[in-house]
């Protein structure tokens, strides 16, 4: 659309800036709070310009933790990172394989299994959380990385997306590979996986953030502080005894830290992410 209407441009930009302000303001407040002393945070109104305690606060929270939570933030960051990576990579690996099986192999009840997977899309984690907890605890997986990640790895969404993508790969490609002498797994590794790499990248971003932001499940399966993820850690830092008992400046610093890795993943993989969502490279 080519238009030359300065008034309209002004209005649209104003709306855009307004939107950005609404989204960015809470983040700014969080950041500012993380650089103040405890007293300054509790002052009303809270200052809106950064204070001088940036390094002190962050070092404090990274190395010693805060509030009820004894675990230092670096430990929780590591836990979150491991959890998110295992979930993202595990989901992608399992979904690639199951979609490959569903699309390229003929076996009894193939469509039945596909629909079984598909139907679980309709069920949020919360619905099956009690039986899942029972299983995990019976397997003695509470307070372990396995327990944190394994139940979240199966993914109907990713399986479905990969299946749809595989269906767009021409049959002749599989046939050409057969004539070339490639067995099914060879075809999978040499052709299917490289062709799916943009989808893999997009899913990685989505699933990493999904894993990083898990709250309810880690809350249930972890009781030792050494297995806390950042999301739980923040909750634990907030004391039950009201505002005065909570070290808000440290909580805010942890919140800032918790935002960094997902943001980095999005920024670094943005090109691939967009490509994976819009591109059909065939």
């Amino acid at each position, binding site marked *: 659309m080519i238009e030359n209407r300065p008034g309209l441009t002004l209005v649209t930009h104003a709306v855009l800036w307004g939107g950005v302000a609404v989204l960015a303001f809470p983040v700014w407040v969080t950041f500012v709070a993380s650089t103040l002393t405890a007293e300054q945070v509790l002052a009303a109104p809270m200052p809106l310009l950064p204070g001088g305690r940036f390094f002190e606060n962050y070092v404090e929270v990274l190395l010693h933790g805060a509030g009820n939570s004894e675990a230092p933030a670096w430990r929780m960051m590591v836990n979150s990172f491991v959890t998110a990576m295992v979930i993202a990579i595990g989901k992608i690996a399992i979904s690639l394989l199951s979609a490959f099986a569903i699309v390229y192999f003929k076996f009894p009840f193939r469509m039945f299994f596909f629909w079984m997977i598909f139907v679980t899309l309709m069920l949020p984690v919360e619905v099956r959380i009690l039986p899942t907890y029972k299983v995990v605890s019976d397997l003695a997986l509470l307070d372990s990385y396995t327990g944190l990640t394994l139940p979240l790895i199966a993914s109907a969404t990713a399986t479905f997306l990969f299946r749809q993508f595989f269906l767009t790969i*021409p049959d*002749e*490609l599989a*046939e*050409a*590979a*057969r*004539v*070339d*002498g*490639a067995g099914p797994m*060879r075809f999978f590794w*040499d*052709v299917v996986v*490289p*062709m799916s*790499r943009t989808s893999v990248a997009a899913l990685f971003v989505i699933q990493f953030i999904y894993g990083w932001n898990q709250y309810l499940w880690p809350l249930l399966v972890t009781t030792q502080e050494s297995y806390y993820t950042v999301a739980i850690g923040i909750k634990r830092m907030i004391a039950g005894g009201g505002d005065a008992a909570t070290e808000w400046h440290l909580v805010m610093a942890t919140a800032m830290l918790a935002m960094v890795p997902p943001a980095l993943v999005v920024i670094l993989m943005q090109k691939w992410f967009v490509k994976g969502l819009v591109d059909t*490279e*065939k």
Partner: protein
Amino acid sequence: MAKVEFRNVRKSYGALQVIHGVDASVADGEFIVIVGPSGCGKSTLLRMVAGLEAITEGEIAIGDRVVNALEPKDRDIAMVFQNYALYPHMSVYDNMAYGLKIRGMSKTDIDERVKRAAGILELGPLLDRRPRQLSGGQRQRVAMGRAIVREPKVFLFDEPLSNLDAKLRVQMRFEIQKLHRQLGTTALYVTHDQVEAMTLAHRMIVMNAGRAEQVGTPMEVYDDPATRFVAGFIGSPSMNFLSGKGAGTGRVALAHGGIVRHANGQVDTGRDVVVGIRPEHLVECGAPDAMFSAVVELVEQLGADTLVHLRHGEDAAVVRQPHSRQREAGTTMHVTADPARVYLFDAGSGARIR
């Protein structure tokens, strides 16, 4: 190099039989074109040779080996697909080298073969490119390169030119011919285009509805079609068919007026037949000499030739004339033909009457 043999090959999908017993043998080094309209089973037949479709009944032998139970990779064939089926994420070089790599060939051997094939196909400067950076004709050449490097006993082509534009198709046709002369490998080539079939084939198999209607050299098939289907399918514009009845020795009375003289044997008087005359064999003549007369419906000028479309009662006919004088639609044209160039077919079965 090897011969290929089809022995009563049949294919069924469940209760539906799509190939009804094909028998043919392809000599070592021969270029065979399997031609027919879409849905006639020609691609299925080729895919059975490749091992991509199971053979329901009968045998296919490559060399002296019956290959029914062999995997595609063990049949020593290479296939060129209609949509090229190049691996989109691999360079041209890797596309050609992939099959060799899987076979565990050494890097230097692979390199030598790929370079040689690239030389033959003039792909040298393109080896580092990805398929999507290539034009249709170049992709086609890469697909052929992938087949060549394997040095198979048999090449299988599945409508390799149908995705190209007309001009490129003619050029690639020529290149395939050249390539085959150079390599001398047995080739099976599937197409629906009768011009491709005529120009490329040493011999062709004309298929219709799952049957091989005729096997022969292009000129045999053109001059001596075995059935009405073959007669109509080979040749462009296709053969004219006029209904008639036997009317004494060497004569057929057309249903819509006119007597056609023919050089075939006895046709019982009153027997329903179909007269076939190719457009290029119909010539204009004076009214007394005419086999039949018809109204000109449409005139198509092709430059070198002129196609005159005639309406003869319920039948239509086309006359191919050297580009000559202007002719008006609506006028009457008198035509005749050499009796030796008149073919007769049974009206019911379509079988040739000789």
